[in-house]
């Protein structure tokens, strides 16, 4: 059975890299004694996939992981058992058994929303307007060989301020991705210094419809 989880990556664990986060989950699944499915073959590995790697230092309320169990356990029971064995800072927020036709979250991910908390809470509406008014914002991105210059302006879809928090909706697909730490650099170039970053949601695109993979249980 497939299990899709949404989890929180809190302040305590924000420096754990994507790869180390995967290891952390594999060990948590063992501690929770969940009957996980493994791949076939000479070197079997756990069937688990994480959507959209988060840069080191960024917190998140919208991390998604999918794995498979060899027998049915209610997703909310899976969530409960995992939350009992997680280190501080990692909390499962919701769990579902996706329908069979439901695609892997990582493959249909389109957008991500972030909250950038500013250092001084000033009103930056003009700076934000200026950023959005630019036709091109070019940054250096890692390419296959060395670095390439990329125009990321089309990847910024929304930029608003609410109190001391700047909310941004950015492209986060396999073909177009603007990382949160890069966005923070752009903000900083426009005189906005960021104290902390949190991913607040991820949006997927199925058949042209944009939606959340699964909401949060309140």
């Amino acid at each position, binding site marked *: 059975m497939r299990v899709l989880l949404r989890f929180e990556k809190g302040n305590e664990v924000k420096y754990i890299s994507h*790869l*180390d986060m995967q290891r952390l989950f594999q*060990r948590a699944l063992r*501690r929770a004694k969940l009957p996980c499915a*493994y791949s076939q073959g000479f070197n*079997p590995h756990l069937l688990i996939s994480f959507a959209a790697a988060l840069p*080191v*230092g960024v917190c998140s309320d919208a991390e998604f992981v999918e794995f498979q169990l060899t027998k049915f356990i209610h997703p909310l029971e899976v969530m409960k058992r995992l939350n009992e064995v997680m280190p501080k800072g990692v909390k499962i927020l919701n769990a579902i058994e996706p329908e069979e036709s439901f695609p892997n979250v990582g493959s249909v991910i389109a957008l991500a929303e972030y909250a950038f908390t500013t250092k001084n809470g000033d009103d930056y509406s003009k700076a934000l307007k200026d950023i959005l008014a630019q036709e091109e914002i070019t940054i250096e991105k890692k390419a296959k060989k060395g670095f390439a210059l990329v125009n990321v302006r089309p990847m910024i879809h929304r930029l608003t301020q609410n109190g001391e928090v700047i909310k941004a909706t950015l492209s986060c697909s396999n073909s177009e991705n603007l990382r949160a730490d890069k966005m923070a650099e752009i903000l900083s170039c426009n005189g906005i210094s960021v104290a902390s970053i949190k991913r607040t949601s991820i949006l997927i695109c199925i058949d042209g419809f944009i939606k959340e993979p699964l909401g949060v249980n309140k």
Partner: protein
Amino acid sequence: MTLDDILLKVDKPARYVGGELNSHFKENAEVNFVFSYPDTYEMGMSHLGGKIIYHLLNSREDTFCQRAYAPWVDMEELMRKHNIPLFTLENKMPVKNADIWGFTLQYELSYTNILNMLSLAGVTIKSAERKEDEPLIVAGGPCANHAEMLADFVDCFLLGDGEESLMELIDVYKAWKASGKSRSELLEMLSQNEGFYVPSLYEHKVVDGKLTITPLKNAPKQVKRRVVVDFENTFCPTKLIVPTVEVVHDRIMLEIFRGCTRGCRFCQAGFLYRPIRERSVEKLKQIARESADSTGYDEISLTSLSSGDYSNLNQLISTLNCEFNEERMDISLPSLRIDSFNPDFVSTQMRKSSLTFAPEAGSQRMRNIINKNVSEEDLLKTVRGAYSAGYRAIKLYFMIGLPFETMEDIKGIADLARKCTEIYQEVFGNKKNMRITVSTSVFIPKPFTPFQWINQDSEESVKEKQRYLSDLIRQMRGVEYKYHDSTASKLEVACARGGREMCAVLYSAWKNGAKLDAWHEHFDIEAWQKAFAEHGLSMEEYASRVIDVDETLPWDTVDVGVTKEYYKRELAKAQREETTRDCRQGCTGCGMMNVCKKEVKS
């Protein structure tokens, strides 16, 4: 600049923030202890002893043990730039606020890191100048038995097993704190406990090159190394910290026994951890179960000095395989001896791509000298077993520069490799995919071994031997030769056998920029050479010195249990190319019989 701002700029910031599963957090503990492995987090968190100490001290309600490791160069630079003192992983406490700061001494090349960490913490480097309210600096681990080079910097060494002595350290510290006595009185109090060596209470005088040692203020003439007799029931943590950053040894290390009965004459651990003390299969099963449940690790490594020697190995492996049958648990044996290798065990470690064996020396004569009681027949039988089990890659590990070594012995290494290629041909029918790696390191004479008085082979001689071996091996296809640079090994001899005059050298080397010496990319031999020269000393002299067996040695204050007479006897036997039996086959009279007997009874 906040800590967060700095952490975003350094490599692997998770190394500096703690918060790992099963780590501890306490408020208002009576005694604040900081444990340090004087190297990086990845090295420190791979160390079993550190985990025992951390969980042991935190098992006390009155004590909070936190950790601090050596920061990597990028982090250190930013910490110094922004005046951030060395802090603990647990609650980011400046280490200088600790009551007791303990270091483990696993290898000599970590000593500059200790000075660097003291400086980063803002703690006075020299013991004699330390103020009343600064932390008590203690150090343990194998090198603590001969760390005269640290005598100016460490307040008290704890010798031998720490499971009992660390608890006593806390008790004495609390009693001292309540008494309102001075720092120097604390040191005197500590010196009255078995296994506590306070270097400042021993005067070292060198006259005409001869050393005399005088104990002061009632300090015992000799300090006995501590031995935990009831190893079966001594503290063993099972709710282990699980590091979040991948570390060198990231698995359950199941300590199946402590000590070794073989008596290899070059091996310091073989003498320093005597006598052998095993845990029962039942106990090990329980420890393994609890550790697996609390950590989620998928690998258990059967840890000891020579795991193949465990007396019930077959039963242990089948018990563990049965216990973890459904859980995809890897059970591995890291230190296999050639003569205890059993192809049946291979199936339990299928994932490894190659097998490593350590004949240590190439010729039978040389193996007799070092008392590595393994015959060529044993080795070749084992290699055949490994090939028959499907392994195509093997690694053979040797030492060169051993005492009384000749070129004929070096040739023996190449001969052994050649015989392995022949066996490969016999087993597989051809030499396709054959990979034999021969690797050599340079022998280092260590205190508390029968070779403690012997000189190290000169750099020229070592290089000649490496060249000779390299020429012989180059002619063999499918065999590769790897060797280590011998410069660092010279320094290791000086650090291991040096007396208190080396304190000044260490201080200068650190001032000259030496740190992270165990890291190839940071090892700075020039900083050290300059330091030796500044004090009119030479690394070469330390390495090439043959010490008279009747001379007083800088580490004579320490009584590890094995007698000096025994070391002398073993050295004489080595010269005669005679072997000494494994002491399980009958006592060899090393001096530890009393402890051995106690263990047998319990």
